């Protein structure tokens, strides 16, 4: 299939093409994402870290929720053991996997609707227990797979198919929720900062406990084309963000590092994304190790 006329896979190929699932399965790189979407590059960054860190596929299963990013299994590493789960239930399934096989460290791909909407309860309790896993929240502030409805993280005043009179609800913040619930490593970054995303991913791989990494990704088709890029800043004249490049500019303009955010007032931070590492607490006790102690006590007999 490699000389498929539709998408000729010309040589030399992308350096990580051979280690991608689609490369192995179809001989050419099939990415079912819209032009300008951030998930394609997240799949590549996952494959890069998986390849460079030489992760053992048996110890790092990939649990993917339901959303646009569910199609990311075409792009992730070919050896990774990937499974698609139900909408919002990925954290619960990962809990079961981790407790039944404590050597494993599940990596969960979840979206803003998937994790803060329908799966909120499982997300909170996953962080409360501080289970050893990595939870990615892809925040494109829209329900992309079902056609652009408003998500719990949609910005104030944004247009979407279910908020024709602009979004009026206050938005929920995944990082604040994770901090309050007790996750031990919480960070937020964007797709426009790919190196920091890989740095956080590698740090989370070594961290014992729940690592929550929120990733701001653009959704051009349903968010960008429907909104002006003065969403975050008041008063400026905005224009439609109808290409990936414009959305990347908007993301870079709207993301403020945590150190700089300390000196900014509430109004300035309105509709802005604060990026950086919010909490890194390696000393917090990890859930499966605590349960191991109970097992040792129980197995010693009465």
């Amino acid at each position, binding site marked *: 299939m490699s*000389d498929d006329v539709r*998408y*000729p896979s*010309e*040589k*030399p*190929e*992308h*350096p*990580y*093409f051979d280690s*991608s699932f689609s490369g192995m399965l179809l001989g050419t*790189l099939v*990415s079912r*994402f*819209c*032009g*300008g*979407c*951030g*998930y*394609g*590059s997240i799949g*590549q*960054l996952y494959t*890069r870290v998986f390849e460079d860190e030489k992760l053992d596929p048996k110890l790092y299963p990939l649990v993917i929720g339901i959303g646009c990013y569910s199609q990311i299994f075409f*792009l992730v590493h070919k050896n990774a053991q990937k499974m698609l789960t139900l909408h919002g239930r990925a954290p619960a399934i990962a809990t079961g996997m981790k407790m039944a096989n404590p050597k494993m460290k599940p990596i969960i791909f979840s979206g803003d609707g998937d994790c803060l909407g329908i799966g909120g309860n499982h997300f909170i309790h996953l962080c409360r227990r501080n289970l050893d896993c990595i939870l990615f929240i892809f925040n494109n502030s829209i329900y992309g797979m079902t056609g652009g409805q408003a998500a719990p993280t949609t910005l104030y005043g944004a247009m979407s198919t279910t908020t024709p009179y602009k979004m009026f609800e206050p938005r929920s913040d995944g990082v604040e929720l994770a901090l309050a619930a007790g996750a031990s490593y919480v960070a937020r970054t964007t*797709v*426009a900062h*790919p*190196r920091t995303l*890989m740095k956080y991913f590698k740090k989370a791989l070594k961290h014992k406990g729940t690592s929550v990494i929120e990733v701001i990704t653009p959704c*051009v088709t349903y968010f960008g084309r429907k909104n002006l890029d003065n969403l975050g800043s008041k008063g400026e004249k905005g224009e439609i963000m109808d*290409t*990936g*490049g*414009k959305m*990347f*500019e908007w993301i*870079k303009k709207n993301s403020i590092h945590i150190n700089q955010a300390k000196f900014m007032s509430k109004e300035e931070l309105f509709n802005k994304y604060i990026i950086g590492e919010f909490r890194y607490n390696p000393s917090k006790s990890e859930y499966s190790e605590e349960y191991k102690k109970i097992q040792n006590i129980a197995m010693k007999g009465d």
Partner: protein
Amino acid sequence: MKKIPKLIINIEKGFSLMLNQHRCQGCEICVSVCPTGILEMSDQLNMRVAFLPKVKEGKEKYCTACKRCEYACPIWAIYIVPEIENEITVKKEEAKI
């Protein structure tokens, strides 16, 4: 298998910037992500009827192979390839990027 046209061939540093023409979706992410801003959209169309990025006039030498465009491209279409065997032979030993 026809050869991919190269956007940049840099012999001293031994790398070249490739663009997988017919896979590119014309989303302009590489243009916006490039730190030295040497890319811009051309008016050449590919099989997907998308405009292809190209390097600005005379700005090839500013490319530092930082691979930000390679990381950010959603369709894995633009990437840095070490320049080892090509029509133009490289006199130095293999360039390590």
